[in-house]
C-alpha cells in the first residue's frame, strides 16, 4: 500500500498528542472521494487531513486559514517546500513530510 511519512519536530508534535511520526496511506490523505476520482493529492490536502484526523489541540498554532502557520517550516524529502512547489506539491508514495517549528531560544 502506498503511504507517506509525516514527522513533527521542534514543538509541533505537542499539537499532535506528542506523536513525532505518522505513516498515512496516500489514499487516506484526500478522504473517501479522492481515491475514487483518482485526484492528485497535494500538501494542501495533507494539511486538511491532519487537521481533521490528527490535530489534537489549538489548531490555530498549526494552521492559519488553509495554510501553515508562519514560523513552521514544511520540509518535503529534506527540502523546504518552497523548492518543491509549496502547498500544491503533489504527494508521491514514500514521501516524507516534516513540520518543524522555528526555535528562537538560546
Amino acid at each position, binding site marked *: 500500500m502506498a503511504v507517506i511519512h509525516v514527522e513533527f*519536530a*521542534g*514543538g509541533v508534535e505537542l499539537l499532535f498528542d506528542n506523536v*513525532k511520526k505518522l505513516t498515512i496511506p496516500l489514499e487516506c490523505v484526500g478522504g473517501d472521494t479522492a481515491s475514487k476520482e483518482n485526484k492528485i493529492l497535494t500538501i494542501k490536502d495533507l494539511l486538511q487531513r491532519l487537521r481533521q484526523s490528527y490535530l489534537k489541540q489549538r489548531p490555530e*498554532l498549526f494552521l492559519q486559514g488553509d495554510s501553515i*502557520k*508562519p*514560523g513552521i*517550516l514544511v*520540509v518535503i524529502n*529534506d*527540502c*523546504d517546500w*518552497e*523548492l518543491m512547489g509549496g502547498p500544491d506539491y503533489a504527494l508521491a508514495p514514500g514521501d516524507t513530510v*516534516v513540520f*518543524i517549528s*522555528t*526555535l*528562537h*531560544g*538560546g
Partner: protein
Amino acid sequence: HETYKAELSAEEIGRYARQLVLPNFGVKGQLAMRNAKFLVVGAGGLGCSACIHLSGSGAGKLTIVDHDRIEASNLHRQIMYTTADIGRFKAEVLVERCKNSNPLTLYPPEALCVALTTDNCLELVRAHDVILDCTDNVYARYLLNDACVLASRPLVSASALKFDGQLTVYNFRDSVCRRCLFPDPKILQAQSCDDNGVMGPVPGIMGALQAMEAIKVAAGLEVTFAGIKLHYDALTGSFYRIKLRPRNPLCPLCGAASVIRTLSDDHLGTNTCFSRQPEVPGNFLLDQDSRI
C-alpha cells in the same frame, strides 16, 4: 595594535599546533582567524559555548553583547559561569573567561553589557566580519538579521529549546535571510528557554556547532550550512539537514523591492528584552513526581 598580522608568533604556533597541522586549515586558516572580527550577541547557553571555542581557536577580535546578569537557573547550561558569578553581567564574565583561556588574540575580547537596539545594532555589525546570533528572542533575532542584510554580513544563527536545537548561516553570499522564510516577526509565536525549559547540553552542542561554522566562514572553508538548516532532536537523536529555498525575490528586506531600508521597531514589533521580568529562582512548583 591595529596592524593586520601576516605571520604567527612562536607562541601562537605552539598554542594552535593542532589546528596548524590540518591540511584543510593550516597556517592560512589560522591567520584568517587571527585577523577576523566576530560579534556574538547573547551570552547565554549558546554564547558561552560559541565564545570559548572561538576564542580558543584564535579569533582575532571577539565582541560579546548581553545586558543580562547571571542567575542561578542559568548555570545548568551556561557553562562558563560559576555560582560565585551570580549577579554579575554575563558579557563581562564571559570576556574574562575568554581572556584567561587565550591571551594571544590580536585584540582583547570586549564586553558590551547593553541591550541590542535599533540604535546600536548596525554600527556594531558593520565593525565586525562574522556575526553570531546567540540571542533568545524573536525581536533580537530579526534585528540582527536586518542589520546583517543592510551591512552585508554573514549571520551564523543557532537556537535551542527543550530537547531541540537549530543552526543555519543566513545572508552568506546568496543564502536566504530570516525574512525570506518568515517575513513578519510580529505574528510569530515564540517560546523561550526561561518559560519552556531546555536540557543543559543542547545549547552547548549548538553553540559549539555555531563556532565551527563561524570559523569556516572566517577561514574561507566551504560554508556548508548556508542555505541549509540543521535541526537536532536530542530525544530521538535525529539530525535533519534541510535544504532551504533560495533568496525570496519578494523578501521585504533582501528582495528586489525591499521596503525595509533601516532598522526600525515598525518592522520588528515590541522589544521584549526590556519588559521581561527577571527569573525568579524557586518559582517552580513541585509536582507529584517529586514524592516517589
